[in-house]
């Protein structure tokens, strides 16, 4: 049974009036500090005292918070009046590594914005049945290394839906799903992050209907070593991934700091990944990059657990619409490569592969078909830069990639309604935001 837990009505009314014009003039108007302090205390108390089934409503208005919020109770919904209407701003945050930290299952958050957190905006650490819907996370001063790391950050979750969200300005990933299982990321918009959308060490993810633009890298599917769960089985489809050419502003040492600016879709060290039916265009380094941990920029024998699989295997690329891209690659060696191989006015092919394969899995000098990077994508070309041999045998031969792989199953979430009207609304809202 659901009980609505409202923030003090009088307080909400005051704030709504005071902030009703803030949607458009948010940077010049601040709500009264004392009112926000009361709001913060009320909200903290609601979160702490929440009972399963509660709906915590965030009224319209712009609220300044200076401390991290957290929720530890299962079955709670946090709901605002819209991602432009209900804004939690952490501009002067003095404490906490997140805006909102959730350690709970059966959690829904929707229709609000979290801005300018000092660390991550929304982190969900362990839990099942997580819905993050129509939430905007944003660092309002544009891309900056000083911005918090992750926008929307479910980690070690099971059955997770991220939809209709907007993520802007994260110094690591706008939307980052890590070490999770059974995930849908759809109809979101990620802009001006280092990584727009990142799926890492996750088993079973469908990433579709998203727009990723103006990030350093649009959509990333990574595996990192030294973690309990290696990931596999991600489908990236029906997304629009274009002009992800923002200079990398990640912190050196973080995995995404090694991503070249101008990367559309990047697969690193992950297996069983399908990229199909996307529109991928004008990403200046390459529209798709497939690479191993060895070329991620921070590999060393000493830094990696012994049983880590650094090779991307069973990668299937088909039916995408490519245009532009590859004209002005980031990273010196790629610039040199482009110039030498494709000329001043030329461009790298749509797919850039580091060419590093597991020598133990070669049969007669070749990878078995089921482990290859398979490309069935019309005219799209691939360049194997032969990174393992210092770029000696660069090849654009598509023949070894003329193969097909068994398609991955669709991800199904029990709580998810069938695709239809709801999706269109979410998509329209995401586009409007």
């Amino acid at each position, binding site marked *: 049974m659901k009980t609505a837990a409202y923030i003090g009505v009088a307080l909400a009314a005051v704030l709504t009036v005071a902030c009703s014009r803030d949607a458009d003039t948010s940077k010049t108007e601040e709500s009264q500090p004392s009112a926000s302090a009361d709001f913060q205390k009320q909200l903290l108390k609601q979160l*702490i005292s929440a009972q399963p089934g509660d709906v915590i409503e965030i009224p319209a208005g712009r609220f300044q918070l200076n401390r991290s919020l957290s929720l530890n109770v299962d079955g709670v919904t946090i709901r605002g009046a819209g991602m432009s209407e209900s804004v939690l701003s952490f501009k002067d945050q003095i404490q906490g590594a997140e805006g909102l930290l959730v350690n709970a299952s059966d959690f829904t958050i929707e229709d609000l914005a979290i801005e300018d957190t000092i660390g991550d905006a929304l982190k969900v650490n*362990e839990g099942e049945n997580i819905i993050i819907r129509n939430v905007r996370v944003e660092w309002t001063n544009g891309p900056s290394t*000083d911005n918090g790391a992750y926008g929307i*950050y479910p980690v*070690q979750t099971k059955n997770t839906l991220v939809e209709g969200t907007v993520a802007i300005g994260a110094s690591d990933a706008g939307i980052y799903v890590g070490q999770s299982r059974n995930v849908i990321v759809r109809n979101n918009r990620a802009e001006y992050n280092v990584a727009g959308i990142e799926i890492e060490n996750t088993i079973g993810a469908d990433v579709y209907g998203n727009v990723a633009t103006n990030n350093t890298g649009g959509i990333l599917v990574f595996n990192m070593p030294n973690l309990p769960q290696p990931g596999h089985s991600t489908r990236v489809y029906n997304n629009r991934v274009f002009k992800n050419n923002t200079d990398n502003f990640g912190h*050196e040492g*973080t995995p995404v700091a090694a991503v070249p600016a101008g990367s559309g879709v990047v697969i690193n060290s992950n297996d069983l990944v399908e990229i199909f039916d996307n529109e991928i265009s004008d990403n200046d380094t390459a529209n798709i990059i497939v690479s191993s941990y060895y070329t991620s920029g921070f590999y060393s024998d000493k830094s990696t657990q012994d049983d880590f699989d650094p090779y991307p295997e069973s990668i299937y690329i088909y039916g995408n619409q490519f245009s532009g891209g590859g004209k002005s690659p980031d990273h010196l060696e790629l610039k040199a490569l482009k110039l030498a191989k494709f000329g001043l006015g030329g461009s790298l092919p749509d797919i850039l592969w580091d060419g590093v394969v597991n020598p133990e899995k070669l049969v007669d000098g070749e990878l078995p078909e089921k482990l290859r990077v398979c490309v069935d994508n019309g005219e799209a070309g691939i360049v194997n830069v032969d990174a393992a041999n210092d770029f000696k045998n660069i090849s654009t031969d598509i023949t070894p990639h003329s193969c097909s792989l068994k398609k991955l199953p669709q991800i199904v979430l029990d709580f998810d309604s069938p695709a239809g009207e709801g999706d269109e609304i979410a998509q329209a809202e995401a586009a409007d935001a």
Partner: protein
Amino acid sequence: MHKLFWGGVLALALAGCEASREQVVIHGRDAVPERLSDWHIVEVIDGELSLNAGVTPYDLNTQLFTDYAHKLRTVWMPAGSSARYAEEAFDYPVGTVLSKTFYYPKAGGGGVLRTADYSADFSRSGLDLDNVRLVETRLLVKREDGWQALPYVWNAEQTQATLEIAGDAIPMQLVDGEGGSNAFTYVVPDANQCAGCHADNHTNKAIRPLGPRARHLNKEYPHKLGSYAEGAQNQLLHWQQIGYLSELPELAAIPRNASYSDTGFPLEERARAYLDINCGHCHNPAGPADTSGLMLHRAEQDQRRLGLCKPPVAAGTGSGNRRFAVVPGHPEESILSFRVESTDPGAMMPELGRSLVHEEGVALLREWIAGMPGDCL
């Protein structure tokens, strides 16, 4: 200095002898009083924070750093009940109340004093409120269904502490012995944030006491009433003696963390003890920081999981533009050093419980890393 400190605590332990005092009251989970005094665990009486009968002070080999606050820890159990010994975590009886009072010695001009010297904190039978400023008292109460964490914040008059489940932020001025002064905000965590540290198993999310465990308690401490000459007693033996601990094995078989500041212990043990109490509650295989792959609890033996040449996973700003958690020989290149030296809430470690850098702890970790052989590349 130690002599004076022990003397103070000894006096404190005598406090329970006052006859007129109400007994400890165990309020229900859903009927928690607004006022700390209603528990009758610790109360302000005659200018002192004094302990009730059976409320027993204890100390840890190495404690968690909280902005140079001094801490008075106590344990109380219902008559006839006792905790059952286990190496990792005791099984405390329902009704156990642990208290931890955070306070500072007063400096002139309304500031608080940064000092490791506890000797002036105590008067005849409690904390001397002429000399110390109380900040907060946290209770952990063992219920049928697990522990409940309750933060109480002391008022400016130092007469009463009130339940503040939303925590608090208190501007303070820290004054050191050499005339230096440092403004900071002391942040009282909210009740959920208590779980951020105390739910060291993040999957079942159960709150547990962190300090009162065998390896932290295994030290001499002057509980024993009687002449000072008889001195201190091992805390675990004392708990057993007063009926608070059962199934205690031979002392020799009980793990013991080093005191991080006692150079009589090997550097490695001191650093690991410091990491264990300050970091291990999150950085353990079941803890909330297991997402990072960095494990800093006492039992960890794998060097890479301990950070050696380990690249970060999701450190973000916390990487400090450094490539590995621990670079042997080079604290200035190690993410671990960067994070404990930071006061940026988005980068610092631990994430909660401090606004200041623990200079002595940082120095210890730097020395530990500087002494490691090898390299990462």
